[in-house]
């Protein structure tokens, strides 16, 4: 799905350049949102693939038992961070929703929409961090 998103984003861009060749405002803005959507949706997948940049020198130099404990801690930290973001993103989203603010650019739409994908992203990140945490804990016993 994420790949499809990015593919759509790119085709979208290219179409706009090659067909119109003009800077149609809504295409520029649309591709900006698409980039945000792709990034937020991609982040949990990249975590799943273990591809987020990290410095693993400490982990590689610890004995395996301590290394596993460190990993457990890291995944818990990750989940906690994602929970805080989820909480405040939802708060802001709900605030926009109740106030009924709208974005007035090329597209006009309720502002809380812009928080749906980031909230989903952090939600999935929590799930993935907890899944890794759980696998490590179960592996421990």
């Amino acid at each position, binding site marked *: 799905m994420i790949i499809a998103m990015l593919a759509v984003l790119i085709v979208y861009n290219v179409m706009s350049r090659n067909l119109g060749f003009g800077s149609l405002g809504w295409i520029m803005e649309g591709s900006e949102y698409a980039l945000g959507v792709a990034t937020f949706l*991609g982040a949990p997948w990249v975590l799943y693939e273990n591809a987020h940049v990290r*410095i693993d020198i400490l982990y590689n130099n610890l004995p395996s038992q301590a290394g596993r404990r460190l990993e457990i801690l890291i995944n818990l930290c990750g989940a906690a*961070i994602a929970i805080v973001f989820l909480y405040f993103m939802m708060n802001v989203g709900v605030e926009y929703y109740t106030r009924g603010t709208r974005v007035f650019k090329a597209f006009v739409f309720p502002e809380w929409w*812009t928080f749906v994908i980031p909230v989903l992203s952090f939600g999935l990140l929590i799930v993935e961090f907890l899944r890794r945490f759980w696998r490590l804990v179960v592996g421990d016993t």
Partner: protein
Amino acid sequence: MEWHLALTLLIGGLIVLMAIGLPVVFGFLAINIVGAYLFLGGEMGLMQMARNTAGAVNSFSLIPIPLFVLMGEILFHTGLAFRAISAIEGLIARVPGRLSIVSVLGGTAFATLSGSSIANTAMMGSSLLPDMLKRGYHPSIAMGPIMAVGGIAMLIPPSALAVTLGSLAGISIGGLLIGGIIPGLLMGLAILGYVVIRCLHNPALAPMDDIALPSGWERWRPFCVYVLPLFGIFVLVVGSMLIGWAEPTESAAFGAVAAALAALFYGRLNKDSLIKSLMETTKISVMILFVLVASTTFSQLLSFSGATSGLLSVVGGWELTPLMLVLCMLLVLLILGCFADQISMIMITLPFFMPLVASLGLDPIWIGVLFLIAMEISFLTPPFGLLLIVMQGVAPPGITLTQVYKAALPFLLLQLMVLMMVVAMPWLATGLSSLMQ
């Protein structure tokens, strides 16, 4: 809170979190949470952080990142890049260190088509290195040039890191991309020169091979079929920016489509290679872009906590000349580069560097290109230089990391030399981009 305490908390905390192995982006996000609570006004600050985060990458100027990465990945996964390199190999004969020279020329050629140093090194390392070692090349003359030339990919457009830097620093992205060309080529020449001199001096490093190459048209045909058209893509991407015909985002879109069309035209584009290219592109782009999600709040924190102005007033008190200041900035980058990844380097230093650059009236493109070269060097500095690790990953078993470090060392010095040349002669970086309309 005093500014130096704030600075220690923000930067020191970040370093600790990174060192224990938390993915870099979550290190930044964690610091953002703590910092937003302390410096941006408690819960209100955290709400502000959430707003920043949701909108941080919705930026038109960042769109070339996935497009540039895609361009290189398509050429890599469809095998077109391999064809181009073997076409170049067919042209080089009867010179000392033949395959090392091929790796420099091929690597530079691929750098003009790929925005990723990692892809470049992985490809050259997996395609040429086994052959070189089999023919008795010394590991240092076999691996060194491949790693060194890998870094050039981020200097010569297309370059995903140049786009990131330009976008966050508010430097003209087109200017920065164009500005990297001459230093990049200079780097390629320096590496080439070094390889030739070393091999002439000590032929045992790279045993001469006497393979018979076809002559005449048969020899040039692959070059004309595979290299020249691909070079056309580079001309399209850079040319359209240079004459002011397209914005960087637009020329990146052209480049990605042209690469896909080229692959289609050569009959190499199929579902598998396309999916593989898209997957890798997503992975690399999200790796970069998701870190940027944390960037807005992080630089706000440095500024609201007084850390930026505090540190800048101390530096201002030293009354350094602009040249000394530039050298200091580069030193900071080089030291940071030994430990941090490139995006973190950008995010930590820019909030301090850009006000300095503005107050001194330095040319931002010159500084940007120096920044890029310093980041390129950081790819090769032990212990964490990314290309060193990539190289060891693709090298045949038996090559130790120490051997990889040793192989990179002379090339590290060459890159420092080019860095100093650009410091001394800013026109190397700014000359070409001043031609832009």
